[in-house]
């Protein structure tokens, strides 16, 4: 599926041009600033007085690829800053899904006719694109699921329930999304295994100093988030993989936020499982991926039973299809997988390295601009944070903040971000979160800051 034109063509390859001086937010009481100062080791790529980052591509042209972004909300241009929840879709992806339905729609794998061949080829070529995108050695490592949640549940059921028992330990962290907590709670409950949590440090990064107390001979699997959906913190997965390897534990990485935002290489990470969602990386909803080592998949029991996942079926028993289809019972989300393939094409054209770089600079800029707002608290300031900024302004509940920002056309998330244990660590019930993607502009961040200041004024701050 070729995009209709080169994305972001005409973009400068020269990196970031730092030109404009722009500082809309003048704080009247900097002394009122709370815990927002950047730690000196953060190594900001530029100082605030040098101005916002300039994207390494033609941002206006890129934004024209995303029809949803050109809409108005409450009469104002939409500023979409809820990318950690889901990304917008470029028309190349929308067109790929439409084209699939118009030209290739049939059920996959068993149709003995041309149309069915096309459907199968479209679906299986998307699988190969995914494998290449995360540098999987073998395309049979790629199982299409409904999303990250189903991918993690697949491992908890198909591996966990046949391999764990009393005395075994599952290790997760206090930074997890509910989708990487609840499947393990259920698994612990059903097998008698213990569920343990790696704690956080005071600056909300994983506390690894006592890692050997947590990763022990009893640990059977370590499941952790690669990039926090709240802070954007990127965890040192490779260090943890080494520790897990040393005790013979498996390791599952929740890549829901990392795979969309920076290059993720499963060979380099050395993980056994990687779960991620299509819809957070420009793809359609309803499709996600479980990467797993092929030897594990061969030895694992099936997840769902039904058509497609079987080889022979007798009255009382059956044999399983080869991997990966052994784990794809029923008619898969074919069009959505095809859409994910088109999303990967789009991301590859922009370049994941450049996406990561711009995303980080955008987040850095937002941190600098927002930190000048009086009485704001920005949570977490790990040097590795990217693409997500949780904050609260004293005296304004996040739901009121989000409602007031919405009136300005600004879409942010307010709540616990599906991470209640993490919110308890922060000592708050909820935060407001702005999260970015490569199509966001520094002007949008300026508008966010203006919107927050207006909200404060409105609420009588």
């Amino acid at each position: 599926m070729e995009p209709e034109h080169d994305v972001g063509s005409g973009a400068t390859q020269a990196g970031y041009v730092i030109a404009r001086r722009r500082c809309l937010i003048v704080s009247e009481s900097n002394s009122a600033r709370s815990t927002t100062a950047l730690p000196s080791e953060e190594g900001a790529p530029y100082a605030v007085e040098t101005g916002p980052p300039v994207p390494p591509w033609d941002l206006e042209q890129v934004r024209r690829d995303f029809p949803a972004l050109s809409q108005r909300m409450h009469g104002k241009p939409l500023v979409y800053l809820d990318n950690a929840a889901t990304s917008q879709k470029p028309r190349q992806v929308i067109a790929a899904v439409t084209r699939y339905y118009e030209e290739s729609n049939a059920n996959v794998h068993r149709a003995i006719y041309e149309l069915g061949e096309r459907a199968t080829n479209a679906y299986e070529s998307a699988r190969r694109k995914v494998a290449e995108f995360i540098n999987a050695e073998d395309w049979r490592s790629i199982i299409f699921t409904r999303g990250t949640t189903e991918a993690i549940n697949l491992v908890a059921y198909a591996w966990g329930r046949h391999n764990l028992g009393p005395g075994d330990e599952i290790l997760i962290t206090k930074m997890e999304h509910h989708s990487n907590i609840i499947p393990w709670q259920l698994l612990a409950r059903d097998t008698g295994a213990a569920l343990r949590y790696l704690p956080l440090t005071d600056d909300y990064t994983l506390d690894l100093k006592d890692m050997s107390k947590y990763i022990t001979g009893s640990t059977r699997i370590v499941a952790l988030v690669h990039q926090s959906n709240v802070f954007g913190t990127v965890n040192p997965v490779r260090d943890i993989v080494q520790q897990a390897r040393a005790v013979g534990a498996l390791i599952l990485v929740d890549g829901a936020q990392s795979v969309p935002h920076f290059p993720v290489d499963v060979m380099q990470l050395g993980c056994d499982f990687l779960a991620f969602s299509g819809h957070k990386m420009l793809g359609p909803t309803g499709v996600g991926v479980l990467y797993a080592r092929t030897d594990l998949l061969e030895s694992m029991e099936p997840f769902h039973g039904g058509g497609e996942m079987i080889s022979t079926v007798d009255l009382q028993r059956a044999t399983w299809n080869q991997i990966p289809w052994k784990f794809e019972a029923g008619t898969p989300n074919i069009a959505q997988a095809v859409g994910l393939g088109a999303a990967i094409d789009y991301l590859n054209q922009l370049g994941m390295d450049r996406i990561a770089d711009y995303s980080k600079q955008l987040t850095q800029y937002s941190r600098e601009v927002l930190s000048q707002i009086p009485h704001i608290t920005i949570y977490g300031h790990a040097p590795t944070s990217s693409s997500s900024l949780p904050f609260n302004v004293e005296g304004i509940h996040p739901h009121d903040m989000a409602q007031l920002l919405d009136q300005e056309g600004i879409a942010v998330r307010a709540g616990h971000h599906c991470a209640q244990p993490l919110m308890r660590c922060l000592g708050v019930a909820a935060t407001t979160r702005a999260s970015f993607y490569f199509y966001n502009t520094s002007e949008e961040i300026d508008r966010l800051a203006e919107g927050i200041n207006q909200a404060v004024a409105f609420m009588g701050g």
Partner: protein
Amino acid sequence: MDDLRELYQQLILDHNQNPRNFREIKDADRAAHGHNPLCGDDIDLYLTLEDDVIRDIGFLGSGCAISKASASIMTTVLKGKTRTEAQELLEQFHRMATTGEGDPKKLGKLTALADVYKFPIRVKCAMLAWRTMEAGLEEQPETITTE
């Protein structure tokens, strides 16, 4: 901004910033707890009854402006009301919060929350204090939620 001005009327902003009866009643006859875990709104409600009449009412808690102002305004209108009158007001308030309809004469300053119905996701915020008050009157020990 018009819809929002109606949702966040001056009276609501005022009650949010300066909540009335924002205190624990140590020797309360009834206490009830309301909590919406998904959004985090939390309220402890205290009632002193004399026969069937609400003699004193106070609350503590945290939450969004709508939930806090709703609780505050509620405490100001319920003092001196009988249980039956309080229950009737609850029903009228619920109708107003979900449909925008109701008798302004009976609702009085509760009409400050009349536009909540335009924001369906916020109805639960406005109702939390009222359902907690109801639980207090009915001596329900369980935490109340409106999510």
